[in-house]
């Protein structure tokens, strides 16, 4: 049956040499180098921000993280600056945005995948993509001129009727313009399209067989969604929300346009006054002195960079590892 006698020990696999041509080896090297460029850039960003921020460490030491003033260019104030108020404000606005954006994103994503007939899906998805493409600057100025007056009405209503809840109380009185609430709503509007896209992709991969089984057992559409689609999409929902969080933390221009900048954290979101690191850098860059002010801004930027890096990496890991997210692009 077999040709010839086998003298070779055929049980041990042999080494297969790919023997690539030189052109192929160059091509692979170049492509891999391109892939590593991202790592290099990330590293450089961190490095250079850190280097440029060193004078700020010298001026402030650890108090940079625990105080809420911003006078880096003034010798009388001892060149002090502190990022705490900014950091808290950033998180405050981001959380407000998340609370509004995530539920609407989930519901809209469900609408697109479960409630809409096939023909309507493409145009609606196009609308969604277009919303995501509108520059944040335009959101900002539209928000300032058009949305803010209406939102002030909402703030008034909330303060008057729900003001007993500490979150909605307004100890500063009826001053509702340029508040963290308004900035948060605007950032939410910007986040919703991208968050919806992520969740929509996730929900659309829900296993058809399980969905049909749920319906065949007599479940209503909403019950089926709750029992099959939402649990399946859990990873995508969490990951998508964290991604939205990351973007919200980094928003600068639109917040800068809306908010009235203060440095102490304002926990009463309906009242005027708030800040975020991004908005602060945008506002202050113009007149920052290279000796102290600029390093302080660099230091604040470094804080923001590290924060968003962590949030985004965790988000991407959650999405990619989840059952629903493995094929999804964020």
């Amino acid at each position: 049956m077999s040709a010839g006698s086998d003298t070779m020990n055929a049980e041990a696999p042999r080494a297969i040499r790919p023997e690539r041509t030189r052109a192929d080896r160059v091509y692979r090297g170049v492509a891999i180098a391109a892939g590593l460029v991202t790592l290099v850039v990330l590293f450089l960003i961190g490095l250079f921000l850190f280097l440029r921020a060193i004078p700020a460490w010298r001026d402030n030491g650890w108090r940079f993280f625990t105080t809420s003033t911003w006078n880096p260019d003034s010798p009388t104030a001892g060149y002090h600056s502190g990022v705490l108020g900014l950091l808290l404000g950033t998180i405050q606005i981001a959380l407000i945005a998340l609370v509004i954006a995530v539920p609407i994103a989930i519901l809209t994503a469900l609408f697109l995948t479960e409630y809409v007939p096939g023909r309507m899906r493409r145009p609606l998805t196009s609308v969604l993509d277009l919303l995501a493409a509108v520059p944040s600057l335009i959101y900002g100025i539209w928000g300032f001129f058009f949305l803010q007056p209406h939102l002030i009405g909402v703030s008034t209503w909330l303060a008057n009727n729900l003001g007993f809840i500490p979150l909605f109380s307004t100890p500063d009185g009826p001053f509702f313009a340029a508040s963290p609430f308004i900035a948060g709503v605007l950032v939410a509007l910007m986040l919703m399209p991208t968050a919806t896209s992520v969740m929509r992709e996730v929900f659309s991969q829900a296993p058809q067989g399980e969905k049909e089984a749920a319906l065949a057992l007599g479940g209503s559409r909403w019950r089926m969604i709750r029992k099959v689609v939402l649990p399946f999409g859990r990873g995508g929902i969490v990951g998508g929300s964290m991604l939205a969080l990351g973007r919200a933390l980094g928003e600068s221009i639109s917040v800068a346009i809306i908010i009235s900048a203060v440095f102490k954290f304002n926990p009463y979101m309906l009242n005027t006054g708030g800040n975020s690191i991004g908005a602060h850098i945008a506002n202050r860059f113009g007149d920052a002195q290279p000796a102290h002010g600029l390093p302080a801004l660099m230091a604040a930027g470094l804080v923001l960079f590290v924060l968003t890096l962590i949030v985004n990496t965790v988000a991407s890991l959650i999405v990619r590892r989840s059952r629903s997210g493995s094929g999804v692009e964020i």
Partner: protein
Amino acid sequence: MSTTDTIDLTGPGWDAGPPVTGDLVAEGVSAWFGEHKVLEQVSLQMAPRRVTALIGPSGCGKSTFLRILNRMHELVPGALLAGSVLLDGADIYGPGMRPIQTRKRIGMVFQKPNPFPAMNVYDNVLSGLSLSGGKAPDADELVEQSLMRAGLWKEVRNRLRQPGGALSGGQQQRLCIARALAVKPEVLLMDEPCSALDPTSTRRIEETVLELANLVTIVIVTHNMQQAQRVSSHAAFFLAAEDEPGRIVEEGPTERIFEGPEDPRTADYVHGRFG
């Protein structure tokens, strides 16, 4: 009987005389995917001017064996092999042997027709050459000759500039054959080339295979026993017992395998008692 044009054996590059090339011999080939062994000590001689058919039920490693013959097996991560494959006496897995060179001498036609959609018919036929940076001195003649040999010339001679994906399934597969032939290989491997096609296209491709046997050594994997009988002069019967790697149970002239097999398992298979 043949509906294709007569094949001109004296076209560019094809010598009417010796030396005979395309002698392919597998010696003790075993294959793994990671820890999982899929082929056990397969040895087979695939002589020139012959069509050798690899038959057997699905999952016995026929396609894997075929891919080992033109060094496509190693593209799968975790693929391992033992043994050697000799083309005209030289081991294609030997030191210094480039896979690219091997694949130019041993061509392959796949189960699912895959012409390049970004090229028209003309460019598809020449793609093997243009992709490797070669130039055909007489491109038009080469295209015509390859398409004639693949039995497609009459149907596409006026459609050479149409996209490759615009043809029917059977035509696409013959285009892939023409494309493989244009590189002037010594051996042509065919992995169930007709399984995705309708009966008429299948018949035409079988006719093409018979005519090509004079030019290239052909090794064809097929599920279809009647096809194996129609087309091949030699056959090898592969079988894998449950949880066992695939082996060749019996091989020899096709007539003997189908009419007087020595091994009872072969007899069972060719008489349709399992498959």
